[in-house]
């Protein structure tokens, strides 16, 4: 009998994604779902979806989900986790959602050591609203609201969330990964798995920042976008473990 080597994770519903060609959300969804399957926690997982491109995340994950207002996912997840302390609660948030309007919520969820896991997808731009500047937009990066390139004198400098949150004692696992090649994808999955495992052990707040592309709003092909991520994003947002119970590896 033939052995199944590759199949859709049980934690993903059999629904086509709405994401643009080359967008990494589909891959990141899959990695989260594979981790849920491998840990066997699908029946006790509760996800919180963001506002932004992945606003419809609840249509893809085969687990209970709540849709949060823009930026408020960590607060919503806090409410959920305090009602169901034994559940695995995760938020899935983009950079506009987490680093701009929801900055206070993520900082305080981390500071409280809230036992939730945040998957933070950083593509350096607002995707859903059509390509405006995010707090993570790089200097000189052209967006619809930084048409002459982001200038630090006007718009300030991009926020490095991992570096910022890792200063908080309540944050137990803070790491940055990327989805630009197969090796990094494997590392990203391992990081997400570790974050979920730490939540299950009751350690505290965990966040995996995933550097990803937005070919549509960057105006590139998917391959050009992956290349741009590697050449421009990784130098400003270095990959690695910023904080873990074993210490950072950077």
């Amino acid at each position, binding site marked *: 009998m033939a052995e199944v080597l590759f199949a859709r994770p049980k934690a993903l519903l059999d629904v086509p994604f709405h994401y643009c060609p080359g967008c990494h959300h589909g891959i990141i969804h899959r990695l989260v779902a594979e981790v849920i399957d491998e840990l066997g926690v699908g029946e006790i997982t509760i996800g919180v979806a963001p506002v932004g491109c992945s606003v419809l995340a609840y249509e893809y994950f085969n687990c209970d989900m709540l*849709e949060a207002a823009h930026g408020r996912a960590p607060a919503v997840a806090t409410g959920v986790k305090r009602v169901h302390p034994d559940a695995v609660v995760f938020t899935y948030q983009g950079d506009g959602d987490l680093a701009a309007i929801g900055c206070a919520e993520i900082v305080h969820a981390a500071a409280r050591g809230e036992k939730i896991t945040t998957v933070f997808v950083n593509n350096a731009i607002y995707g859903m609203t059509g390509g405006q500047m995010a707090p993570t937009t790089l200097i000189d990066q052209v967006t619809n609201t930084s048409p002459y390139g982001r200038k630090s004198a006007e718009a300030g400098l991009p926020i490095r969330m991992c570096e910022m949150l890792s200063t908080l004692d309540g944050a137990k696992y803070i790491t940055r990964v990327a989805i630009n090649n197969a090796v990094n994808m494997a590392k990203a999955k391992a990081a997400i798995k570790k974050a979920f495992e730490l939540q299950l052990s009751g350690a505290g707040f965990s966040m995996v920042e995933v550097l990803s592309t937005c070919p549509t709003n960057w105006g590139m092909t998917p391959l050009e976008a992956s290349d741009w991520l590697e050449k421009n994003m990784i130098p400003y947002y270095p990959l690695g473990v910023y904080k873990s119970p074993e210490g950072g590896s950077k």
Partner: protein
Amino acid sequence: MAEKVLMKGNEAIGEAAIVAGCRHYFGYPITPQTELTEYMAKRMPLVNGVFLQAESEVAAINMVYGAAGAGARVMTSSSSPGFSLKQEGISYAAGAELPCVIVNVMRGGPGLGSIQPGQADYFQSTKGGGHGDYRNIVLAPNSVQELVDVTVLAFDLADQYRNPVLILGDGALGQMMEPVEFKASQSKAPEKPWAATGMKKRSQPNVINSLYLQPDALEKHNIRLQEKYSLIQKNEIRYEQLMTEDAELVLVAYGITSRIVRSAMEKARKNGMKVGLFRPISLWPFPEEALQRIASRVKMLLTVELSAGQMVEDVRLAANGQCPVYFFGRTGGIIPSPQAVYDQIVTTYKKGGK
């Protein structure tokens, strides 16, 4: 029969919530409701409950959203400026049909205003406050005992209709002490098969959501919400009326104001004036028909509020031109004396009615 205890309004709300089975509270300190937040901090751990001081009112209401979505009886409280910050979350909770209780111990505004009592959040509470076509059930008690009774009721109504319920108090009610009795609660949260609890053995995920990208789906959702609101309007109207049968002038007031107005009414009666009092307890649904009936037989209505005139608009709509509707209000945290209201009654009488 339960013993009577002397309690501050704010604290009585907290104890009533616990009696009603609320075990999750998320709040943020703001005067003049802080004693409620403090009370929950003290009491919740003693009843195996959860107290969490959020980083902001915005976070607090979203924690409520999460906890309500996860199936808990949950409450938050604030005062006017903080209540404004909660409006976003209240709109989402209404959209996602989440049962939760939100207490607003009103103070003066706009802006930072004052920390003195006010009633100027009437529009915000009864007409939406956040974006979209939605309604909250709004209950406005006028004594510490009624704060208790209404709080227990609020949890039941929230669950029954899967809707946010607001308790609208004010700085005076929150701060005053009166004897109260906590009856053994008959209140019990129903099963919530729709809640996000983890799928367990369920075959389909539960999704708590207020997003409907397709126009026809969103309109259908809104039509269904409106049907629910119609049902609430039919079933949940609460009010009190005193000496309205033979009255020529009926005062309309809610909350703390209704008690001052009542003293003025009694004095007016003693002096031979035929004055009554109509007190809405549910501000939404507003007791429109009952007031309409009164308006059809009295000479005039006089609305008294701690605002520049907000509920008076609903009173005028209810009166529908059947009699003149006069208004007397103070703002800035000034509570008119019974004498000031009495003087207003005399003046209004002189103006005459129909």
